[in-house]
């Protein structure tokens, strides 16, 4: 066999024993062995598959974390946008609120110069932003309106809606009592399925969910505007409720018929006078104890 073939076979580690003997006798054998031994020193550094794999996994984990980093600023921007939009939406729909406490009255001037007087323990809310397109007000309690001329003006109460064009009227929406009195112009009242247009002096009264007819009034404004309360054939309970609102007191009542009809009034600025005004006509006696007043038959 030729030297070249032997060397090639040696390179492929495929010499059989006979050939290996022949290979040993080759002139180049010593040289090749020396070369081969020397080459072993060029071995690469050991490659620890396991430690290298750990390194790789660590690098990959770090990388996936980094890949999510771009997401962070996007989320921040999105959050800020969401807050801005939410804030805008919230404020643009936010209603302007007015509340009065017990024994407190308030004058309010609406954006269109409509004046509203809010009686004690009442609340009024309207949307300032939408005011031009729709003049609408939410009301609980009692208020007197002087509506300036313009588009339809609507007052929503818990039981009915009142809409007008430009007029003066009073709304009283209390427990078991709903009363609208028109003083100037005309007022349209929608209560349940009843719809009625009130002319000056006319009023619409609902007592305990029943519509009650009332004679025309000649007053040009409600009494409470002038710090007085006035009642015409009203249940005594309503009188006491109004009294409590105006003076921030509570009544305890013994054996008195709360549905007894009362006609008369009381001032808002003098407690003793007011108490006399509501008790004497019915022959009642009162005793005062701080904010508690007890009523008894004489």
């Amino acid at each position, binding site marked *: 066999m030729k030297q070249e073939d032997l060397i090639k076979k040696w*390179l492929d580690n*495929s010499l059989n024993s006979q050939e290996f003997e022949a290979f040993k006798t080759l002139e180049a054998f010593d040289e090749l062995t020396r*070369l081969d031994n020397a080459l072993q020193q*060029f*071995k690469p550094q050991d490659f620890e598959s396991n430690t290298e*794999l750990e390194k*790789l996994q660590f690098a990959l984990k770090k990388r996936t974390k980094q890949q999510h980093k771009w997401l962070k600023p996007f989320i921040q921007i999105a959050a800020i946008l969401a807050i801005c939009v939410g804030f805008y939406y919230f404020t643009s729909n936010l209603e302007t609120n007015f509340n009065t406490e017990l024994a407190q009255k308030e004058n309010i001037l609406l954006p269109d110069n409509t004046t509203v007087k809010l009686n004690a323990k009442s609340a009024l809310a309207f949307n300032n932003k939408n005011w031009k397109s729709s003049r609408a007000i939410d009301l609980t309690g009692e208020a007197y309106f002087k509506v300036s001329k313009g588009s339809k003006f609507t007052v929503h109460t818990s039981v009915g809606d009142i809409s007008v064009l430009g007029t003066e009227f009073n709304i009283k929406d209390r427990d078991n009592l709903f009363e609208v009195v028109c003083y100037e112009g005309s007022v349209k009242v929608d209560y349940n399925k009843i719809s009625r247009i009130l002319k000056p002096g006319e009023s619409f009264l609902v007592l305990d969910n029943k519509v009650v007819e009332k004679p025309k009034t000649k007053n040009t404004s409600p009494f409470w505007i002038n710090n007085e309360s006035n009642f015409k054939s009203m249940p005594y309970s309503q009188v006491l409720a109004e009294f409590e609102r105006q003076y921030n007191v509570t009544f305890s009542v013994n054996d008195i018929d709360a549905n007894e009809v009362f006609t008369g009034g009381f001032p808002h600025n003098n407690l003793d006078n007011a108490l006399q005004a509501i008790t004497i006509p019915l022959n009642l006696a009162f005793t005062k104890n701080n904010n508690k007043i007890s009523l008894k038959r004489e």
Partner: protein
Amino acid sequence: MAKKLHENICDEIRFNALFKKHAKDLSNFLYYKFGDHLNPKDKTQDAFIKLWENCKKVAPDKAKSYLFTVANNLMLNEAKHHKVVLKHQQTKPKHHTNESPEFVMEEQEYMQKLQSALSSLTDAQRTAFMMNRVEGKRHKEIAELLGISTKAVEKRIYGALKKLREDIKEL
């Protein structure tokens, strides 16, 4: 055609198995071809990271050649201007030696000659030759790793040996 068992290697277990199978060969291949100074281990890591990122696009049976190609390209980007130098490990001085100083010196000289002779081989020759000599890989295995024919491997290895012997004699 038989249905493939796995569509891709986007699975930690399969990926890790792939790493254990090919990482060492790849690292050594890079070392033989480009030398030590470009850090073949790091390039091996980079190649596997790239494979992981593209795991959906690389079919399992193409993964090996993908790895070798990517690592090779990564190296080439850096290797352009470097001359390949294989480091021979420092032989530890023996505590007691019968070797004469002349012999030791001759030995050192020989190693230096061998080193420069290896450097002057072509990349293809050196890679195949070192795989064969240092790792004892047979021609067929090398042919598979490099994606060439057995005949070509044999040619490269024999050519390398011939050139080395000549160079060492001349130097």
